[in-house]
């Protein structure tokens, strides 16, 4: 029996019945990681020994008859911007190439408490800035569905590791689409929670008012299980919402009858690949067939969301990234004097895109420009949010493509930042509004997956789970399987 490629709830059942052990499960996944990493490069760090130790502990606890939570013993991975005590956490940046945090992020603690076996830390665009992982300071990740294609980004490694079967689920972070877009490109499920639903403590900040951590999974049941494990108020994060967390599996209902689903027309206009539009239409037809009511809606300020985002996010980033100076941790490039040491460290430690955004953000916050840029961007943010509020008066959730295209080729957009930024045009408004959205695979175009984005009201992840689960139960389009034979052959050769 192949143990890779199954879901957490399927494996959990096998573990519970003691048909397999977590150690065995972990070993099989480590084997696959060894076989594939040469081609996929989803990981910055693989923590095989730690993983096996955790797996053995879980097996011992199970052997003692302990009742274990559903994710106990399941191989998982974290994006490399989530702090792991004693394990290198780099943000895929040379400036943090050797940073070993002395503490765990809250999500790391929560996953440990849930018994998940952490296999390693996933590659990403440097400091989560990018949409293809080509901005990784180390090396890009490849898309398991097509090695010529990018996996999306910035959580490309997290998405690819799940798609390739290297782990069962993973966590990513989403500032403007960094979970949903790679989920869409890699054919897995990715959820960006409501801002404040998951603790950011220990998540190395890109843009603090937009960042959220969320899961990558292979099916909706796993998505709900991971949500149960990582959601909830954290006293260490002042922006974490003091709300009760429901059992998300309770929303997994095969029923969309009477649900009102809005189709924002601005998301279906220019720049959308016609074949992606076809996939979305197919989903609309399916939902209507299952009893949902779909209707076009307008979110008139959508076109301003991207420029507002590229003021707010870089502004916060310019401040968040100012601390990397070579003094206390991370890269230090020695120089003749202290000031030169700072300059050299930052010049060599940060990549092009990160520098670009630091400059953009510093400029936008500068005296004399603040009102014209930052303040105006905040006003647009409010308008974007009001658009959603208005739409949710009538609709239970909204349906859009996750990204205008399926995965693009390496190098296709790498030299054109604006074209790269457009890849997140459908996901960015959601972050500005702080609301939840999920990307569900739905069909493929030339072998490359396409994702649907479901957008919900704040703290109403439940409706998204319900709609996505219903589509999952009633079509065979939500679990595209990559053909990894080629990669495995090549991987073995290399």
């Amino acid at each position: 029996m192949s143990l890779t490629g199954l879901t957490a709830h399927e494996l959990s059942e096998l573990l519970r019945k003691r048909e397999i052990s977590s150690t065995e499960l972990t070993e099989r996944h480590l084997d696959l990681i060894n076989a594939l990493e040469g081609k996929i490069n989803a990981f910055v760090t693989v923590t095989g020994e730690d993983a096996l130790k955790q797996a053995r502990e879980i097996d011992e606890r199970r052997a003692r008859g302990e009742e274990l939570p559903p994710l106990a013993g399941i191989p998982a991975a974290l994006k490399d911007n989530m702090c792991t005590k004693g394990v290198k956490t780099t943000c895929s940046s040379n400036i943090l190439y050797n940073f070993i945090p002395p503490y765990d992020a809250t999500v790391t603690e929560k996953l440990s408490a849930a018994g998940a076996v952490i296999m390693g830390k996933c590659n990403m665009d440097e400091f989560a800035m990018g949409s293809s992982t080509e901005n990784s300071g180390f090396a890009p990740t490849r898309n398991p569905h097509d090695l010529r294609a990018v996996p999306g980004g910035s959580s490309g490694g997290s998405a690819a590791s799940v798609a390739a079967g290297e782990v069962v689920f993973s966590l990513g972070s989403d500032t403007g689409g960094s979970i949903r877009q790679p989920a869409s490109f890699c054919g897995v499920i990715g959820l960006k929670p409501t801002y404040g639903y998951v603790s950011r403590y220990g998540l190395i900040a890109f843009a603090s008012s937009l960042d959220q951590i969320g899961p990558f999974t292979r099916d909706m049941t796993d998505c709900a299980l991971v949500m149960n494990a990582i959601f909830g108020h954290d006293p260490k994060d002042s922006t974490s919402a003091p709300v009760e967390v429901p059992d998300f599996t309770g929303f997994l209902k095969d029923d969309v009858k009477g649900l009102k689903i809005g189709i924002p027309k601005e998301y279906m206009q220019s720049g959308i690949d016609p074949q992606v539009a076809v996939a979305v239409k197919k989903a609309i037809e399916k939902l209507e067939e299952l009893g949902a009511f779909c209707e076009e809606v307008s979110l008139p300020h959508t076109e301003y969301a991207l420029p507002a985002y590229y003021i707010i996010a870089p502004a916060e980033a310019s401040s968040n990234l100012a601390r990397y100076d070579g003094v206390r941790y991370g890269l230090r490039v020695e120089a003749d004097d202290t000031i030169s040491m700072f300059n050299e460290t930052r010049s060599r430690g940060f990549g092009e895109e990160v520098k670009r955004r630091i400059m953009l953000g510093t400029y936008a916050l500068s005296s004399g420009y603040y009102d014209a840029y930052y303040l105006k961007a905040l006003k647009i943010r409010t308008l974007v949010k009001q658009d959603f509020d208005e739409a949710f008066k009538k609709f239970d959730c909204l349906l859009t493509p996750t990204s205008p295209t399926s995965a693009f080729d390496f190098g296709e957009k790498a030299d054109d930042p604006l074209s790269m930024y457009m890849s997140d045009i459908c996901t960015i408004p959601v972050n500005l509004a702080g609301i939840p959205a999920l990307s569900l695979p739905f069909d493929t175009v030339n072998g490359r997956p396409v994702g649907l984005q479901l957008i919900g009201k704040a703290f109403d992840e439940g409706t998204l789970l319900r709609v996505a689960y219903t589509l999952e139960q009633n079509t065979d389009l939500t679990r595209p399987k990559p053909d990894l034979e080629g990669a495995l052959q090549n991987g073995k050769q290399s």
Partner: protein
Amino acid sequence: MGSSHKYETVIGLEVHVELKTKTKIFCSCPTEFGGEENTHVCPVCLGLPGVLPVLNKRVLEFAVRAGLALNCEVAGFSKFDRKNYFYPDLPKAYQVSQYDLPICKGGRLEIEAEGKKKTIGITRIHMEEDAGKLLHSGTTIASSDYSLADYNRTGVPLIEIVSEPDMRSSQEARAYLEKLKIILEYIDVSDVKMEQGSLRCDANISLRPIGVEEFGTRAEIKNMNSFKALQKAVEYEVERQAEILNEGGSIVQETRSWDEEKGVTVSMRSKEEAHDYRYFPEPDLVPIVVEPAWVEELRNSLPELPDERKGRLVNVLDLSEYDAGIITGSRALAEYFDRVVACYEEPKTAANWLNGEFLRLLNAQGLEVTESKIDPEDFAALLRYIADGKISGKIAKEVFAQMFAEGEKPGEIIKRKGLMQISDEGALSAVVEKIVAGNPKSVEDYKAGKEKAIGFLVGQVMKETKGQANPGLVNKLLQERLDSL
């Protein structure tokens, strides 16, 4: 008055106060002064990647208390902002502070300088975090081979109290800072020790021709570490600016540093070199919403403030303005006084002893009121021995010194040393008889009309009784004896 007599001086002060909360503003590290370098630190105050701040509620409480004591309006809604600047003593490269929505606004403070009372406006009070300390191998970071960083102070809570430009002289500036220190000490929110840096003051100083409304260009003076330094720095700066203006020059808007040794201010950076702090709302903290009921609770829990207390001492206890001023000039002394007069009904006598012997001995040994070994009840008991005629004032000073040195009770000292005053007429008559018999020359002088001679005889009786005789009684007995001759 030097060259400044044509100008009016305009001074505004920015005062940073370290709050004496147990823990830091955004983490649970201790705020304690001192400690081995980099031991009062954690990932949060070190600004390690990924950490987030959580506001210490006590900081908010202390800031609101300070605002209420300074007659400020407390904002129902305020927020934190990031003040971005790069320096290695600031591990996040931004200071969490408050920019456009501070916690308190629009207060005032009554001062008295050169015999005149005056009200100084308080513009605002905001909360922020302190930075760490750097030790350079050279004089500046740029000229050093290496620099050492200590982050113990990083994240210690501060409030910054900004005054209106209402002060017109160095004396007023000093009076303002002294008064502020006393109030903050009364409400118990800070150690207010300038030498330890828990009270720091920057001064904005400008001149304008007398009669002109418009403010002149100001210089900001930093690095004044005592009240005296503030006064001297202001005086120097006023002269410096007046000289420039008199020579037809213009003042450069800049930041200057007070050089205590040389007694001068020196330029640190000009307006062009000033930081652009790129303030923006701190996204890691939620806005601060303060309930009016809580503010009222804090207002009601404020202790009696110095002016109120002084008023009570003058109006109710009938002390002089001067005595009341000294006593209420320190919360500890005022409280000590209250405890003494709770056991002794003559406040004026108590005040005399407190402001006399007590402060003299404390100052001589450089001690704080709280370090005194004399229990206020014993202090009162001593005063009662004097009032009851059991010891003389002179003996009392000796007893007091012993109490101060050892913390012994006055009754025990008097008993052990046999210092009780002799008020027994029979016993004293015998001594008087002996002295009169032994000093015929003085007796003769007295009888001849030299009334002063009785003073010598009283002295002889006191000497004979080792100072223990009741001087009033000795006088009376001597008078009677001499008159009977």
